[in-house]
């Protein structure tokens, strides 16, 4: 884990509300695992004050390593980032957090909703490179919102679900998940990332089917590396009533989360 200088060599709008940022990192940077994130700082000012967390969508090693993240210009910080062009410097703290622990077996499912595709693109690439057989399920409101970068994701099978049926099957990605689980042969595990409501639903589906489910959660972060205790996720673990999203997660076992107490 390091706080590293980087240059934004690419900052491109890829969908109506989704941008793709490429950072060239100066010096050594530990190879991240899928599910890990970085805390980004833009500029040297005090406002906005805090860094912002982003799951790593891809990473390439080299004399100069480079990583990609996806972001939606939804708040002041991200809108500022979208308007910053290219060639500016950033500080990158990471890699942070606990990654997915993908099973050795085949027949797992990756479930992505919205910006949640980012860590699953990286997971998909790693699993494809390792020769795993799995299916990625990607959901969005409509075809124009779907983002699945095959160059990053590698050669795994992918199925889409859109609410208006403009791409893939009509409905939510969780409907698609139910269908895949119910299919012949069973499923070994589910790895999911997306809006809270989607994760809650995925967790329920997996719990009913008795399938291992790992989810990448998001909540408000301040430090991002485990000291401020702001990012707590209520847990079902008796000895540890709170899990820290930034350091016990962001990938957590769905059954360890107390979904009732976990407010949006």
């Amino acid at each position: 884990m390091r706080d590293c200088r980087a240059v934004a060599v690419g900052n491109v709008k890829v969908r109506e509300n989704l941008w793709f940022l490429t950072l060239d990192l100066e010096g050594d940077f530990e190879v991240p695992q899928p599910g890990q994130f970085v805390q980004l700082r833009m500029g040297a000012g005090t406002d906005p004050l805090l860094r912002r967390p982003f799951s790593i969508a891809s990473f390439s090693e080299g004399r100069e390593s480079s990583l990609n993240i996806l972001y939606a210009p939804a708040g002041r910080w991200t809108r500022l980032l979208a308007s910053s062009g290219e060639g500016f410097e950033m500080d990158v703290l990471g890699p942070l957090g606990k990654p997915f622990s993908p099973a050795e077996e085949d027949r797992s499912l990756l479930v992505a909703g919205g910006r949640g595709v980012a860590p699953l693109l990286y997971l998909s690439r790693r699993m494809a490179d390792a020769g795993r057989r799995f299916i990625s399920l990607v959901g969005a409101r409509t075809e124009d919102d779907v983002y699945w970068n095959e160059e990053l994701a590698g050669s795994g099978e992918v199925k889409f679900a859109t609410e208006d049926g403009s791409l893939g099957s009509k409905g939510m990605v969780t409907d698609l998940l139910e269908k895949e689980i119910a299919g012949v042969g069973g499923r070994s595990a589910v790895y999911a990332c997306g809006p809270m409501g989607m994760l809650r639903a995925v967790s329920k589906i997996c719990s009913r089917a008795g399938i291992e489910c790992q989810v990448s959660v998001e909540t408000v972060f301040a430090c991002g590396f485990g000291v401020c205790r702001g990012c707590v996720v209520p847990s079902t673990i008796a000895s540890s009533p709170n899990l820290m999203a930034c350091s016990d997660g962001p990938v957590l076992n769905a059954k360890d989360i107390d979904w009732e107490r976990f407010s949006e």
Partner: protein
Amino acid sequence: MKPPTPDKPDLSLAIGGLKLRNPVLLASGTCGYGTELAPLLRMERLGGIVTKTITPKPRPGNPQPRIAETPSGLLNSIGLENVGLERFIKEQAPKLRDFPAAVIVSVGAESVEGFVRLADGLVGVTPVAGLELNISCPNVERGMAFGSDASMAEEVVGACREVWRGALIVKLTPNACDMASVAKACERAGADAVTVSNTYLGMKVDVVRRRPALARPCGGLSGPAIRPLAVARVWEISRAVRIPVIGSGGVCTAGDALEHIIAGAGAVQVGTGSFVTPSAAEKVVEGLEEYCLRHGIAELRTLVGSLDIGEDS
């Protein structure tokens, strides 16, 4: 012993009997129990750390949301989530055995007896060199009670003084009506230093949902936004007491630290600054050394309270 020369400025100071290599500490609540930041900055470059506040029993803290960003600031309502005294002694203290900077443990309780129990429990626990009494937490019921009343502050500090031989620091609240009186009471009761100060009570409103951004309506404000407030209090309190004042509030850079020091702080704490730049505290030390070299200052302590306000007031 060789006297300090301008090529190697002396940044050291003493708080009670505790000697610190320099006046830069990590603030309570921003560095856990000392281990998380270790990969990101060199602890041996700092004067010391103040741990997360320990309470007699473990506390789960407040419901979330617990944090909200504000203009140049951070509002927090963590609520003293901590492992409790017993687990601290058993699990955390051993990890700090060879910690390369002074370890000061922050303690908080709801009663004088609670504070004494904590102080007593930490006697002889290596490597705890000092206690910081948290009588100023805005995020728990009655967390600021002892810090808001001079006689209550005097009672709790006096009781802890009887039990604790190491450095005894008291963290004050700026939400008190008369912080100077509370500071003087702490001095009378035997405190070795006061930390000025804990966070400022604040609120952020989500205007769409018409709800507070935090679960617990109000929280404590920290960060660059409060620096002018903190520096003013440091100036005021350092003129009210003779014991060292530890400045805390918006210290992110050496320049920020120098504001506090020149205003009257013998030492400073870096808190929220570490969230922005994990190596902030180390950079502060570097910057203080450079400042001394540049201005031919052999001993940093000669800068403390050197604020020139023109005519005497």
